[in-house]
């Protein structure tokens, strides 16, 4: 826990990250040991390892971090979190960085935000996700080429009865939407 009295000395970026991550105050205790960067299944593809990102957060290098691919390369496998000797909730910080990057319009380099948006749009509308719709719409708008490559496997999936062509809709979709609307409204208050 960071003592309140010490929080004043942290970089603004650090303060923001802490504020946006449940349990995020642990990040100030990063030892720079690198067990996160070493463990990450995608670590070799990251612009900066999580460890480096934490150092950059402490140094207030906001743009460099939010424009990096690091958090978009995160697959949420939580291996770093499980191994961090300082018990920093690293995966949660990655989520926070994703949200900040989207909010601040810096998430240019990755397709992940678009996939996320497509996905949640469907859930907003139907209450369930819809693999076929998500895949086609996302690929259509973002990766028309890869749709061709995917074609074969997609067709096999379809043939095996594994791709539904119509979405399932929950009964009380209105209730869900009311909850989502309220949550959006509340999150805009901050």
């Amino acid at each position, binding site marked *: 826990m960071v003592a309140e009295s010490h929080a004043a000395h942290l970089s603004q970026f650090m303060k923001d990250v802490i504020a946006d991550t449940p349990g995020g105050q642990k990040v100030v205790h990063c*030892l*720079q*040991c*690198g*067990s*996160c*960067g*070493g*463990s*990450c299944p995608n*670590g*070799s593809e990251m612009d*900066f*390892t999580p*460890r*480096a990102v934490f150092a950059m957060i402490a140094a207030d290098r906001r743009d460099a971090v939010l424009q990096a691919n690091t958090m978009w390369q995160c697959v949420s496998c939580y291996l770093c979190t499980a*191994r961090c*000797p*300082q*018990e920093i909730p690293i995966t949660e910080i990655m989520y926070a960085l994703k949200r900040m990057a989207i909010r601040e319009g810096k998430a240019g380099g990755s397709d992940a935000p678009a996939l996320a948006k497509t996905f949640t749009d469907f859930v907003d509308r139907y209450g369930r996700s819809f693999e076929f719709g998500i895949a086609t719409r996302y690929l259509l708008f973002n990766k028309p080429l890869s749709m061709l490559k995917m074609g074969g496997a997609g067709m096999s999936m379809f043939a095996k009865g594994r791709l539904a062509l119509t979405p399932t809709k929950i009964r009380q979709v209105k209730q869900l939407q009311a909850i989502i609307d309220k949550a959006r409204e509340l999150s805009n208050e901050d």
Partner: protein
Amino acid sequence: MAEKIGVYVCHCGSNIAGKVDVEDIAKWAGENLDDVAVSRDYKFMCSSLGQQMIEEDIKKEKLTRVVVGACSPHLHEKTFRRACSNAGMNPYLMDLTNIREHCSWVHKDRAQATEKARALISAAVQRVKYQEPLEPMFVDVNPATLVIGGGIAGLQAALELADAGYHVYLVERMPSIGGHMAQFDKTFPTLDCSACILTPKMSEAGQHENITLLTYAELEEVSGSVGSFKVKIRQKARCVDYDACTGCGICVEKCPRKVLDTEFEAGMGNRKAIYMPFPQAVPRVPVIDQDSCIWFERQKCRACEKLCPTDAIKFDQQDELIDIEVGNIIIATGWKPFDSKKIPQYGYGRLANVYTSMEFERLCNAAGPTNGKIVMRDGKTVPKSIAIVHCVGSRDDRHNPYCSGVCCMASLKFGHLVLEKTDAEVYSFYIDMRTNQKNYEEFYQRLLGEGMRFVRGKVSEVTDAARMPTEQGKLIVQCEDTLIGRQQRYPVDMVILMGALEPQEDARELGLKCGISCSMDGWYTERHPKLDPVATMTDGVFVAGTCQGPKDIPASVAQGAAAAARVAGMITKGRVMIEPIVATINEQACSGCKICNNMCPYNAIEFLEDPGVSRVITALCKGCGTCVAACPAGVITGAHFNNKQIFSEIEGILWDALQPADDSSPQAEPVPASAS
């Protein structure tokens, strides 16, 4: 009779006066608090002039009580008690209240700090009125000492005391003294042979006329207190007559049962069912491991008994309880290695060529199972590359948050031994290299020069899952090289895990027996981390070596000697003062309800069957006051912390909190006149 109280408020230079208006408080106390006869402030109350001022006031003004507002009683209570004593006042009629550490140093606002200091002074003035004169108690110190643990720290302590002419009982759980140091090959940074410097000390202890060696023995029970402890030791059955045995070793040689030696050889070698842990063992008397002996298993064999030239084998030997009396106890029980299986991603126990540091110590020890040849588990292949993994279970909130201190240097030592004995490449995976003792940094420099490779990064995993042909059949160490910021994979043949030093499994239990406590991480708590590092909160019980926290050999030796010096001081003085802060039971009023008896972990409250009341055995009482708070009849009094004193202190501390119109006191009432 009203008391005459002197109030002394210290400036402590600007330490207090900078945040607290001490002059105003002194003036206020003099004018507003009942029974205050003198009230002064002064630059440095603890200086000889400050003390003199108090002494003179006591004499001239005939003060009956003294309140000092200054620093923590842990710092200067003794000082001011002495001043009062000098002036002929009983020292327990003084109260030191802490307006520095608890007030001026921690509060920002001057007005608020002053208000708080005022409350603290007011509390002390109210309290001191009810303080009672107390006489310190003295007990004689038994000159014999118990040392628990025969590792290097315990050995050092025992030898120092024995050489000074005092008797020592040295108790060791294992069949031989020597401890972990006996298992090591070389010692850093000098690289001298561990056994060569340790064994002379062991044999000296074994032969010393002032040392009673009790090996293969454990502490059973401790009672009594500083000066006169009564101790029960369990001498485990060796099944060998200690006096008859000559240590010839025929029994060991002829014993048909081989077992894996998980103790001395750390699982790297075997021993017999009857064994001495190692050739230089002291005493040279073997023990029979009853769990492995064929006789104990199925009543067959007895080869050792038949062959023993002195008929020393005694299968029917039983555990024995030995009673001893000592004046002081030194605990030097050391450490145990971290269980590396707790970190499965390092593969220990699953991947054959992952070793613990203790295993590697035995592997490269000339007297070890491979005669010092560094080979892999197959017993023949010499590794071409070795990875040393630091901080295994140390500096890790999931295991031990502390730094084990010695592993960096031990890895350098391993690196050196590997480079000296093989052509292998050695990688050291570290977070921070910690080499901050005499000649340690120089040793690090030396290894840099010898070609040991250092990678800054905590190892993420050790795996046999190859990703490319060069990794096939290797152990791959994966980590982030934090200095270049990239994930890296290092294929090696052998991995050494530098496991943390951990407190002994039963450290807490032993601590309980001796009345000392462990910190959160399980190491024994010293009385003061800087100024009193070998004493404990229990008088007469000292700690030395790694049982107090991870440390290297020089520090363990220094602590062993320091503990011995403290004990020698006590013995020389001959008697020890005990604070008279103890509980007493008003036996007339006690109804014998037996609530208090079990409250006391020191068994200091006895129940007297005949009158049916309880009584405090003053010599055993440590003064915690738990029984005082528990007594339902209110007939137990805690000296210096009795109810009246504390109630008054609470009244004083809340002097400004009482509502102005309190109609509880009948006197303050507007009494309507009755018709007359």
